[in-house]
């Protein structure tokens, strides 16, 4: 726990240090670089702080991801060891010849299947797996945000811009489908007359 807290403290220190210098450099350079406001460099300079912040925060989430991943593999390996112990105990009772090959295989498969299914069905596995996925998603979010910074500097649509278009298209498709349906129903009614 102490190591974790030291790590957090030092991370905070470096985060502050890096953001301090990013801000200072930005303040010092923003006026001269305003000359290049039509090019990508000024936009990039304005957004550079975002990149630094994202990278630092991604580092924090990477720690969480690694913790969860280590727990995931620990759960798998613990289960494997226990299952193997049970198989070893049982397998000595079965003669090791061709006639009993199938029986030995069945014991191995059934015991491993049983132990691993119990693990995958357990609360502790589900909880850690959920957090592992969430930490992966956090990393993806940082990555997306960093990419957005770069895309914005080049006037290229970001994920958010594209999502807005998808949403709009979805709503238009829905409206069109409704209109078509209403049109068809009216046609059927008119033909019936």
């Amino acid at each position, binding site marked *: 726990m102490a190591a974790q807290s030291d790590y957090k403290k030092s991370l905070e220190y470096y985060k502050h240090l890096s953001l301090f210098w990013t801000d200072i450099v930005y303040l010092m350079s923003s006026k001269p670089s305003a000359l290049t406001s039509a090019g990508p460099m000024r936009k990039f300079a304005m957004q550079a702080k975002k990149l630094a912040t994202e990278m630092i925060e991604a580092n924090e989430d990477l720690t969480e991801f690694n913790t969860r991943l280590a727990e995931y593999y620990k759960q798998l390996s613990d289960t494997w060891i226990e299952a193997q112990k049970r198989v070893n105990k049982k397998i000595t009772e079965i003669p*090791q*010849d*061709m006639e009993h*090959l199938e029986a030995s*295989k069945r014991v*191995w*498969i059934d015991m*491993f*299947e049983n132990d*691993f*299914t119990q693990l*995958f*069905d*357990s*609360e502790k*596995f*589900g*909880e850690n*797996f*959920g957090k592992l*996925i*969430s930490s992966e*998603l956090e990393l*993806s*979010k940082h990555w*997306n945000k960093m990419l957005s910074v770069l895309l914005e500097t080049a006037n290229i649509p970001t994920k958010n811009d*594209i*999502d807005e278009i*998808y*949403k709009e*298209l*979805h709503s238009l*498709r*829905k409206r069109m*489908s409704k209109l078509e*349906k209403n049109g068809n129903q009216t046609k059927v009614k008119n033909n019936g007359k």
Partner: protein
Amino acid sequence: MENELKIDPKLVAEFFKFNKNMIEAPKMVPVPDEINLEMTPYDVAYSEDKIRLLHFNSPTQKQHQTPLVIVYALINRYHILDIQPHKSWVRNLLNQGYDVYMIDWGTPSNIDKYLGFDDYVNGYIDNCVDFVCNEASVNKVSMQGYCTGGTLATVYAALHPNKIKNLVATAPVIDGQRDTTVVGNLAKHMDVDNMVETIGNMPPEFMYYVFSVLKPFEQGIEKYINFFRNIDDKNYVDSFLRVEKWLNDTPPIPGELFRQWIKDIYQDNLLIQNKMYVGGKLVSLKNITMPIFTQVAVGDHLVSPECSMPLHYAVGSEDKTLRIYPTGHVGMIASSFSQKNVLPELGEWLKERSNK
């Protein structure tokens, strides 16, 4: 030599035979990628966005008035219901004289991430049903839904009971809290809002992971050992490769649909409590008053019987049948068992209710 290791010579021979089979396998079996999963011929009767309504060509004359619309699941593709001539669900029903349609959901792309339950149920399924009613000059259709398709068909039947003559729910996902499978456990711990917001549609790779932990040793190791041991058996190999190819081809699930699925069915369990809303309308299972046939499999490791069976008790129908078969999720629809037991029973059940 007292310490000599004693190994049964038959074991050694088996080991060499297994190795030989592995070496010769590429020469003996087709490349999985080249296997065509299309079996029974069909026409695309209707299409909208990426979905298609398939109308199967019948080898026999239509004997029953009410057409059957099959709502396939959202996971993998429809081919499993027509995987091989002698195990084909579709072909069996055609041979029994039914007019069979099936919805193929296609492959959603990023642009489809906002498609939800409302779009699937009140949009696509409803449009397909209207099309079939119009084409077959009927007011109602029989509807069968398999797995997650069973859930969609159930919700449709609850919201549009006037268009459904008979409902067949095959291993439907209904009561998420009672689901005892690994899928249920993982779904309950998922931050689905975060997931959909970040990655949009549910990627196939994620589905593969979830399925890979269902029966990791039987499905991940034993079946491949059996495959190489049976490499000389043409029927075995053909069946194995077709099912493998089907298993490894799953489209993404639209993000919004996935979100509502996980939250409303697995996490909050709203469907069975008649508290789920689709398109602004409350889904009450009590509205299902048409004849209903619920089919579940005891060995289902994807949708546990406890998750499907509550449908039978929750609907408002007086004419309801529940069958529990001693098989698995896929065995119920694509096996010799299903041809001999499940389909004849379904055919009889539908026959009594299709021509009234």
